[in-house]
């Protein structure tokens, strides 16, 4: 059964996975370098380690842009502080277009909580958002205590607060906010166990240390392919084709706007305009490179539309900041 699930899922993935990968919205195959820019390698500040999701997307995009333009990109990893260390270092770097930043939706939630933190939509210029994904709740495929979302909710309620779910439940994180939406909507109480690294988080579910897992599908793809994990809830407005059998939160009676996980690339807002235009082209076109598309497909990032250009990114970020701010106020957090 496990293998059947895995095989079926893989085949579905390959069928559906190209839905959002085929067309490239940035048509120009080349773009004149403004005043010879860039004459040397770019530096990409990455506020997370090289092995995680951000590190991998930064490497894939750097490789794609270099393939396209011949311009080398040095990645400078500055992990720590939920991305704030890297962001601070980037804001202090020269705004000459030679320094770009990779960041995720954490930058938006950090600004929503504390407006003195940079607003990625206005204090920076988004070059491209190259990964947008949704979250799901997973259980072990061989789990017998519950097999789907309704039976899971029923079981959790019967445990009187003793049930557990693994996630990254740091204060104000997307995971914690979404779990608040879910628990309020269902009336269940569940203990969130915060694991900041993926491996112990997934191991906790595999080994039965926790009862469920909150995660994005790309990060657990190998467990889905191997038939070890099974999604029981998709936190997105519609069922993606790949997960056609998994109900969405709205179908299960939860009426909230899903918070998305997204990763993108930025440059200083006061960088020279002609250089910014070239960078926009390089990164938006880099998204279309075969190597980058192959990477995104391997990460389940072609299941829904992962691409946003500058305006699309600004819209996504601004909407996300508003959502977080409303939630934080409702949670009683000190929104500055």
């Amino acid at each position, binding site marked *: 059964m496990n293998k059947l699930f895995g095989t079926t899922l893989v085949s579905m993935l390959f069928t559906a996975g190209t839905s959002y990968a085929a067309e490239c919205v940035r048509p120009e195959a080349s773009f004149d370098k403004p005043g010879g820019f860039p004459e040397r390698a770019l530096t990409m500040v990455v506020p997370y380690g*090289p092995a*995680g999701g951000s590190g991998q997307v930064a490497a894939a995009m750097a490789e794609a842009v270099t393939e396209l333009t011949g311009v080398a990109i040095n990645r400078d990893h500055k992990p720590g502080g939920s991305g704030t260390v890297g962001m601070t270092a980037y804001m202090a770097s020269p705004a000459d277009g030679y320094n770009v930043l990779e960041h995720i939706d954490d930058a938006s939630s950090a600004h929503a909580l504390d407006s003195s933190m940079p607003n990625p939509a206005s204090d920076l210029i988004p070059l491209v958002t190259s990964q947008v994904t949704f979250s799901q709740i997973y259980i072990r495929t061989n789990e017998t205590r519950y097999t789907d979302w309704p039976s899971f909710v029923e079981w959790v309620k019967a445990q009187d607060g003793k049930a557990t779910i693994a996630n990254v439940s740091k204060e104000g994180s997307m995971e914690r906010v979404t779990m608040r939406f879910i628990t309020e909507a269902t009336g269940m109480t569940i203990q969130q166990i915060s694991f900041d690294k993926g491996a112990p988080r997934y191991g*906790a579910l595999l080994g039965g240390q926790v009862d469920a897992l909150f995660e994005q599908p790309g990060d657990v793809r*190998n467990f889905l392919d191997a038939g070890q994990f099974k999604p029981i809830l998709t936190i997105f407005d519609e069922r993606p084709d790949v997960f056609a059998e998994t109900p969405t939160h709205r179908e299960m009676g939860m009426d909230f706007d899903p918070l998305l996980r997204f990763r993108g690339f930025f440059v200083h807002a006061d960088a020279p305009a002609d250089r910014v235009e070239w960078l926009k082209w390089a990164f938006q076109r880099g998204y279309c490179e075969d190597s980058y598309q192959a990477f995104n497909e391997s990460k389940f990032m072609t299941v829904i539309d992962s691409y946003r250009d500058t305006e699309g990114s600004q819209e996504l970020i601004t909407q996300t900041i508003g959502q977080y701010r409303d939630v934080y106020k409702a949670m009683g957090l000190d929104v500055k």
Partner: protein
Amino acid sequence: MIDNFLAGTYALFGDPVTIGIFLFGVIGGMLFGAIPGVSMLTLAAILLPFTAGLEPAQGVMLFAVLYCTGTYGGAITAILFNIPGSPENAPTSFDGYPMTQQGKAGKAVGAAVLCSAIGGVSSALVMMAATEPLANWAIRNIGPPEIFALVFFGLAVASSVGARTIWKGWMSVLIGLLIATIGQDPVGGINRYNFGYIDLAAGIAFVPAILGFFAVSEIFVQAEKKATGKYNAPKVSMSFPSFLELWRHKLAVLRSILVGFFCGILPGIGATLAAFMGYGEAVRWSKNKDEFGKGKLEGVISSETANNAATGAAMIPLLALGLPGGALTAMMVAVFQMHDLQPGPLVFMLSPDLIWIVFAAMFWANLSILIIGVIETKTILNLLKIPFQFLAPLILMLATVGAYSGRGLVLDVMVMFIAGILGYVLRRSGFSIPGIVLGLILGKIGEQNFAQGMQMVHYDLGTYFSRPICTILIVAGVLTLGTSAYRAFASHKKPV
């Protein structure tokens, strides 16, 4: 198993390109492991994009070899200059550097070479024999409460290492634990002790702190001796440990293999905890605890056996379950994915050839530490002949580059120098630098797992003790603490 191993060995050494990649990994891992700041991770990150052009087995094999030899590489600088190449080599310097000062550098390095090879080869053999059942046992039985209990058990002996009195030993560990609390708390993400300084939200990084406490404070100590005319240059000795000397430590080796393997198999833990626990267990079981931290060969043997024993073990959750044990094994996941493969149960079914080439490569890489390590040691020991006035600035420069290069933050250089000054002052007062570093490194791991464990047991300590492994380790740790306190009172050691 033997047939598969021989087939993997044949595939490894039957192709000149694969041999070249293997040798590159062996030498590159040793070199990058030895230079502080630019660890095997640096080399792995540089090589990652290039593995796309290799055969899948070659790419994964290269990273596995880097992991084995890179873990050993940092021992050399830890022993000769008190500069651990990476955190997992820090306990090696506790006794390795004092041995260098006593003119026994050859013995220390020789023991490190041999024990790294023994630890690594043993681990590789167990990995080949029982990857899947071991991985499944570990994830079902070891969770955050057990890992916290393991750390507590390890910390309970840390006070015995290198301090003038047991009380100063405990104070040293507590200072380390206090430093470990700087930065965001590991569960809620709340900033602590960062005084509004954002870079401190990431906490105190291990490498700059270790470089400061060990290398910089040592330079201050030696400079003081030089200035007061008490400086004695370390004697350069090429004499390796005899077979009899090593045979006397067979139990320490065996214990460290078990400890290292156990720590390595836990997802997300890896070689650093293994080295510290291996060292801690050597202290716990020794009749001469006071000799640790002062140049005891067993200290070097225990930490180097344990950290390399963790390398093969860390491959077990990666290959069997797709769970990487640390940053380098996480990069290996990326190598798999570049070739449309996923580590986990399916890879055993779909790519058994790849698995056995990797297993064989790790076995031979660990053995090659022995051969290349001996040749390398004969050369590198001559560095000790450089006069102090030239060597000290060189070490300081290397340490500064090492501290900065990890994250590119000036803060880390500042941390290194502050740790150096603090280390110098505390050493003069009889506090234990190994104790502080043990507290710092184990404190971060322990706090995170304690908090996660408390969430899992719904903040009910009674439930914590309903987990047998957890209970045994905590009780053993409390007994160790009680025994050491009793001994301190019984021997009329007065608190200072």
